[in-house]
């Protein structure tokens, strides 16, 4: 699969917003500050374009795992429900439905997001990665989860695998504490954490061999 590399500026229209921020010396800013700045930029852009009100049924195209998928949603439809109910992309799971358990995690433009609280209409033009697109061979995160039995019922597993992949994409050499923090947005009820933490560390090693 394609790996997201912000340095490439591989989004349509040249360098991404994230690159712009890096180039403008904001790279060292905390994630929160970066997020705030990004929001401000979004708002500025929206003001230039004028208000756009969406209602009823909206046709959108989402780029999911490198493939353009066209579907009809309502403006209120979440990315998660759109993936699961309309596009049969069922890897991401609906568990808490309010951004507290992480089972619905997908990667949007390189960042892990809770798809249960992301509106589908805001995702046009973004690169959406779900775990169905991940490398399943021995250099991939799913393999490390399998080898470490980092799953029992397996319903939280897609979210953990995705959060883990997103973490390792940004931090290929995480410490155990960084892994814990990187996965703290996910909950497992079967209590598979011991295997999950080891899987993340093993995957970090294996991905370097890819």
């Amino acid at each position: 699969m394609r790996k997201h590399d912000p340095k490439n500026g591989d989004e349509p229209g040249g360098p991404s917003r994230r690159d712009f921020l890096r180039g403008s010396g904001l790279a060292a800013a905390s994630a929160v500050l970066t997020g705030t700045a990004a929001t401000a930029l979004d708002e500025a852009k929206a003001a230039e374009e004028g208000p756009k009100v969406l209602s009823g049924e909206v046709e959108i195209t989402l780029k999911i795992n490198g493939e353009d998928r066209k579907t009809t949603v309502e403006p209120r439809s979440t990315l998660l429900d759109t993936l699961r109910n309309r596009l049969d992309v069922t890897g991401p799971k609906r568990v808490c439905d309010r951004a507290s358990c992480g089972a619905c995690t997908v990667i949007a433009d390189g960042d892990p997001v809770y798809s249960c609280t992301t509106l589908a209409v805001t995702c046009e033009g973004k690169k959406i990665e779900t775990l169905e697109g991940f490398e399943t061979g021995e250099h991939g995160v799913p393999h490390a989860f399998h080898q470490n039995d980092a799953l029992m019922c397996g319903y939280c597993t897609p979210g953990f695998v995705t959060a883990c992949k997103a973490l390792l994409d940004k931090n290929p050499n995480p410490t155990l504490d960084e892994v814990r923090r990187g996965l703290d947005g996910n909950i497992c009820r079967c209590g598979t954490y011991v295997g999950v933490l080891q899987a993340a560390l093993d995957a970090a090693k294996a991905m370097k061999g890819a």
Partner: protein
Amino acid sequence: MALTWPEKPTLIGTRITRLDGLAKASGKAKYPSDMLPEGTLFAVMLYSPHAHAKIKKLDISTAQSMPGVKGVVAIAQEGATLRYHGDDIAAVAAVTEEQARDAVRAIKIEYEVLPHVVTEAQAMAPGAPEIVKGGNVRKGRSQDNGKTGEAFAKAEVVVEGKYSLPVITHVCLEPHGLTAKWETADKLTVWSSTQAVQVVAQELADSFQIPVANITVLTEVMGGGFGSKFGADVWGRTAAELAKSTGKPVKLFLDRVQEHLAAGNRPSAAGTIKLGATKDGKLVGLIADTHGTGGSRGGSNFPLPYVYDVPASSRVHSEVFVNGGGARAMRAPGHPQGCALMEAAMDDLAEKLGVDPIEFRLKNLKPDDFHTPIYEAEVKIGADLIGWREKRKPRGQNGDGPIRRGFGLALHQWGGGGTLDKKVSCTISADGTVELKSATQDIGTAARTVLAIIAAEVLGLKPTDVISNIGNSTFPPGQASGGSTTTPSMAPPCLDAATKARDALFAKIAPALGATPADLSLQGGKLLIQGKPSISWKEACRKLGTASVSEIGSAVEGLASTGVGGCQFAEVTVDVETGVVRVKKIVAVQDSGLIIDRLTWDSQVYGGVIMGLNYGLFEERIMDPGTGVMLNPDMELYKLAGASDIPEIVIHAYEPDEQKARGVIGIGEPPTIATAAAIGNAVSNAIGVRVTEWPMTPRNVLNALAAASKEGKA
């Protein structure tokens, strides 16, 4: 010759990855809630916003005419009484889920709100509104053993304490529900998130008055049950009804809120326990007055006395009825409660006697009980692994700084064991395919893999060479995944089936090989003749021609057993200024007879401990006495451990040869029982006073410190 487990297995007892593990880890495994047959309608439930109310008027007409709506069904009728926040009222099926949600909101209801009791204190208060005929508190029959009056006359040291544990909910990550599709007017297929495919099939057959053979319940994988997913439930029957009336497949899974409210819970437990001993540390008696709530239906009883040899005991348990969702079995039903209350009292008594809690426990194990030597060995191992003798200090002697370190332990027991009426089929085809079939399912324990390991062991193959088909109610009878009985019920018939299939294969192909069946054996993917490798497994099977062999295996006495005992130790730190408890380390020592897959055994034990850690530290259903609603039906205020909350966990399988000789027992439940008890004891050891209420939250810790301070104890 009687069938036995192989003496020198090559696979059984080793670490083998799950057959379906990669499918789950790559999002390719399809859960019942992922199934969307062509044309599926989405159904959404309407449930009670009130704790107690009568439906005066129920009007579904507007909802019926909403865009996309194909079916509306009233579950409760006008005049019906709603008994709790979350009680079922109606369901809507529509083309999109968004439309179904809109239509649910358009159902018009007039309620007559009735007085409620949602906490035990409310229910037990004098003059409380009676929510059930006969009173909210129902005193059980006294369970007496011996004469406690005489016993306590002999007691030299006595403690009396009040302890309590709250209601907690299962929080299965995949919600309860199913997708139903009628193939013809009397043939139904459902994809159900269940731990009992055949129970669901029978329930639907009864509801729709069709033969159970016409119902296929499919559960390829499922997202957690813990005891709450044995049936089709009201919502499952409703989905099937909507599918029938609309002529389309209907998918109905609960939302997270109703999942907490209506899909089951572990009942609370509370009580006053008086425990007495002689000065030399021998228990003489126990008197307990306990209660708990299982919601509006009861079911809160738990074992007490627990584990230890109490010569005389007298115990009364009262059921308290509240306007809350009903109790369902939850991982080792009753045992975590009985264990916590008993072990707290045991610890408090050891403290008062001034003896080491381990010594006190060992002194009071039941003589002649088979558990006793197991506990004696396990406690020694556990004490070493936690560093009990070097690190532990007596209660309250853990320094004057704000952070206090403490150690605690608890013992538990569980039945497990299997039933003798389950079957597994094993088919060997001419192309070398081996297929197992049984109508059991995998709740997360790796049932599919466990069966494949056994067949592969018998046939000299790899587990991945075996197709292990479960999760289909039409297959040979299989065990429900409950009570830690799945593996002990299914492993023996699997061994029997694979052995019979192997023998049938040998009988068929021996003549073509110029050998007798007794000359043949299987090893490393090869057929051996008189011990010498001859042809590959596939070549051997090809000699079947176009035929295949298929055998049904049954349970065989002596391959499974029942009853385990385990112990757990906890090391905690407590900040006495903030009340924050951090668990540093947990040691779990557990027997379970013959272990089939050590890798997934480890996962089950870790998982049990972590569920116990949640019970000990975080979980509680919080009901609002004023409005009667649950305040935390979600996953942020209903707290569960995340990755940063997981301490060092050391697990130890107690498996000397005599344990292996007992056969398969089952492991899902035992390792979750003692954790909360051990954590509670470690907290008391750290801060010098008993925290009487679980979970060990800052509030409960600070309350205990404040109460002790008032009494001049701390």
